[in-house]
């Protein structure tokens, strides 16, 4: 039998959703992470695609990954998305970039142009997870 979808689980018994925020600019990352925590999510912060990947392959929990495209390290945001889709297909993904342009918007089904509005990010996360609220 399939597990019930997240939106059907009563809020009182539901484990908080985990959002993995992958962003190499510390202030941008902190502001987004704190906003999402205040909204009710558990937020994990990673400064690069490499770090995010280490977290995931080590058993770290994430329901959704919100990642920048251009970052230092071996694994760029696009590669991270590909790895996640191949190895953790249940994890939802949202991509952000300051200069992704129309290409990124077409390539990724969920794309947020920087500078983004945090309320819009929250809406996008809630929609991607298929829930009514965090």
């Amino acid at each position, binding site marked *: 039998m399939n597990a019930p979808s997240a939106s059907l689980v009563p809020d009182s018994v539901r484990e908080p959703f985990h959002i993995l925020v992958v962003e190499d600019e*510390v*202030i941008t*990352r*902190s502001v987004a*992470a*704190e906003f999402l*925590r205040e909204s009710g999510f*558990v937020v*994990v*912060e*990673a*400064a*690069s695609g490499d*770090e*995010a990947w*280490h*977290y995931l*392959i*080590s*058993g*770290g929990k994430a329901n959704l990954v919100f990642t920048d495209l251009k970052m230092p390290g071996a694994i760029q945001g696009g590669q991270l998305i590909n790895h996640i889709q191949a190895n953790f297909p249940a994890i939802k993904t949202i991509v952000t970039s300051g200069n992704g342009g129309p290409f990124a918007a077409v390539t990724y089904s969920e794309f947020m142009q920087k500078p983004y509005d945090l309320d819009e990010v929250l809406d996008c996360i809630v929609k991607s997870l298929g829930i009514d609220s965090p």
Partner: protein
Amino acid sequence: MKQPTIALVETDILIRYPLSHYLRECGYRVLEACTAEEARQLATARDVAIDIFVLDIAWLGDAGFALAQELRRLNEEWEIITIGSVKRAVKTAADLCEDGPNPSHASDHGNVLALIQKRLSMREKRSA
């Protein structure tokens, strides 16, 4: 009452995330820095008020000692705690938790250490 703010400077996400989550459960606001440079940016950001810096010297190495000295020069009122091992990091977090706004909300720090060790072990196996 103002929520005390800790800047946790730890390069390894498998240590940083469980520690920061634990400290948040104790009522702290926790800002995460993954490198010494990120810590500098947080320290000098105009609208970020930090009370305590926790620096993992084991991973930061010489950059960690230099950062500690720099932070002391920037603001003598900052409490700066340096840690040198995972066990020490968890013990430090447990001590901070006892003094935090919500110590009763914290999970057992032994569980935090066990979780970190389990994740580090999983990464080693995957990397081998």
